């Protein structure tokens, strides 16, 4: 049994060199600075099958990733992946296309989902080359961090 058994894993996913694609990383970095109890925070440049191994042994996994094609940049959507399916069909078209949706659906098929898995999807505005979030997305990061912090503290408190 790993030390993290029954702990919480937060995964920020994205590429900070592609503007709003980096929102998952920005949120993870802010959460890492919060010293949350019983929590491990990691950054992942890409989602993919490696996540299945990464989240083994954790009771709760929280993933933060950017959403493309949204209409309200900065708005976030909370998805409980044990009770919901992603709105579009997962398909492995290439390893380049093996994203969070495909990873979670593969884990579901292989019964390798963690006991609790929540995804925070943040609508982005710009995904071009360059560092820094667009103002509308950057403005929402602190509120999202507070919400996740409160959720984690509630989970950790409940477990103790």
């Amino acid at each position, binding site marked *: 049994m790993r030390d993290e058994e029954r702990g919480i894993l937060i995964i920020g996913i994205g590429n900070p060199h592609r503007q709003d694609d980096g929102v998952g990383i920005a949120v993870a970095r802010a959460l890492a600075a919060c010293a949350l109890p019983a929590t491990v925070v990691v950054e992942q*440049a*890409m989602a993919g*099958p*490696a996540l*299945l*191994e990464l989240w083994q042994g954790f009771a709760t996994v929280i993933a933060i990733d950017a959403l493309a094609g949204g209409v309200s940049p900065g708005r976030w959507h909370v998805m409980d992946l044990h009770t919901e399916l992603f709105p579009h069909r*997962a*398909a*492995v*078209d*290439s*390893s*380049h296309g*093996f994203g969070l949706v*495909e990873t979670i*659906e*593969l884990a579901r*098929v*292989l*019964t*390798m989902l963690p006991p609790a898995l929540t995804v925070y999807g943040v609508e982005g505005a710009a995904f071009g080359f360059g560092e820094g979030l667009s103002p509308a997305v950057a403005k929402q990061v602190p509120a999202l961090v507070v919400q996740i912090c409160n959720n984690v503290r509630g989970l950790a408190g409940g477990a103790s």
Partner: protein
Amino acid sequence: MSKATAHRDAVSRSGRASTRNRTISIKVDALARVEGEGALTVKVRNGALKDVQLRIFEPPRFFEAFLRGRHYTEAPDITARICGICPVAYQMSAVHAMEAILGLQVTGPLRELRRLLYCGEWIESHVLHIYLLHAPDFLGYDDAIRMAADYPDEVQRGLQLKKVGNDIVTLLGGREVHPINVRVGGFYKLPTKAEWAPLIERLKWARDAALATVRWSAQLPFPAFEQEYEFVALRHPEEYPFNEGRLVSNRGLDIAVPDFEQSIAEEQVPYSTALHATIEQRGNYLVGPLARYSLNFDKLSPLAQDAARDAGLAPTCRNPFQSIVVRSIETLYACDEALRILQHYEAPEHPYLEATVRAGTGHGCSEAPRGSLYHRYTIDEAGIIQDARIVPPTAQNQKTIEQDLWHFIPPRLDLSKEELTWQCEQAIRNYDPCISCSTHFLRVEISDA
């Protein structure tokens, strides 16, 4: 009836309308389960195949142009960015070309560590293709997620095996994707012997898993499709090739790497952003696992040779559909070779060799998972790159992929259009084509001619 056969029969029964004597055109606008973006157009008129075009429309990426003006030390890191699947290959071809200019000869433990890093890349790239991209073709599934529902143990084995390859690249390369620890002359920093220790035990498991992969892949249903290829790969007198050797073929090509451009011509075709390659005076050829295996069977480790024989694979393999078995054998070899290197590993005194910059032109060729990858650079006396040329394996294989389809399609014109399209895509995926690398590729179109 096996799960695979049952599923496949269901697929074959769908839409039996024959394409024989018809005029059809197959168009696959986005080829799936390949790396990057490309398409296939097939035109059949009155039951005769009239045209096959493998169209690569991923935009040119101009790497050769923006290498100009950069310092020679940057080449391995810049070219690693060409591909997220085979960055090590780009790094290796780049450093060997630069070292040829500088007169550096990397030997001993540093050379072994380069082979080890390449083992990691072969394992992760081959296993990804075997389990997640290619096996669904043979078993009749749209993708690995659907396949995993019926083959959970196999897919999990694949994921764990791939992870071992990733871990080698992470530990020695500095990170899993686009490693950053390779430099001209060696490495920036080396892991300690203690850091390698846990990997040795995992590689022992990986070697068993790779052997199981060979046995599993060998019993997949392969169409009878043997082709007369000119195989081209590196050949080294003492080892299965990664970084060094002469470029040889089964039809007499036997050249030193610097003579690549005297023997291999590249030409533009209007429908592809990747150049087509041919051997001067002869035509298309094949690089990659089939070529490497068929030209170097005797250099595989005894374990890999025995596994091939037990799997019923002859020392020469001309059926591209069996490339999944050859990739499995190369994965087994890579695990075996990685173990050999680590079990004998003694840390070098320095992580790299120092070099004094000088002007010149250098050539490098190494065996990327998909085949021979050639680089040529010219640098000035300050070490600034004046000119660069990169010839990736998928670009070299384009003409051979088309040739395969010219032979593969005519006997199958009685298939439904849907089934023929599926099989054409599978024939392309035999090559594990990396379109992103080659552009400088997959959608399939079979439509009215």
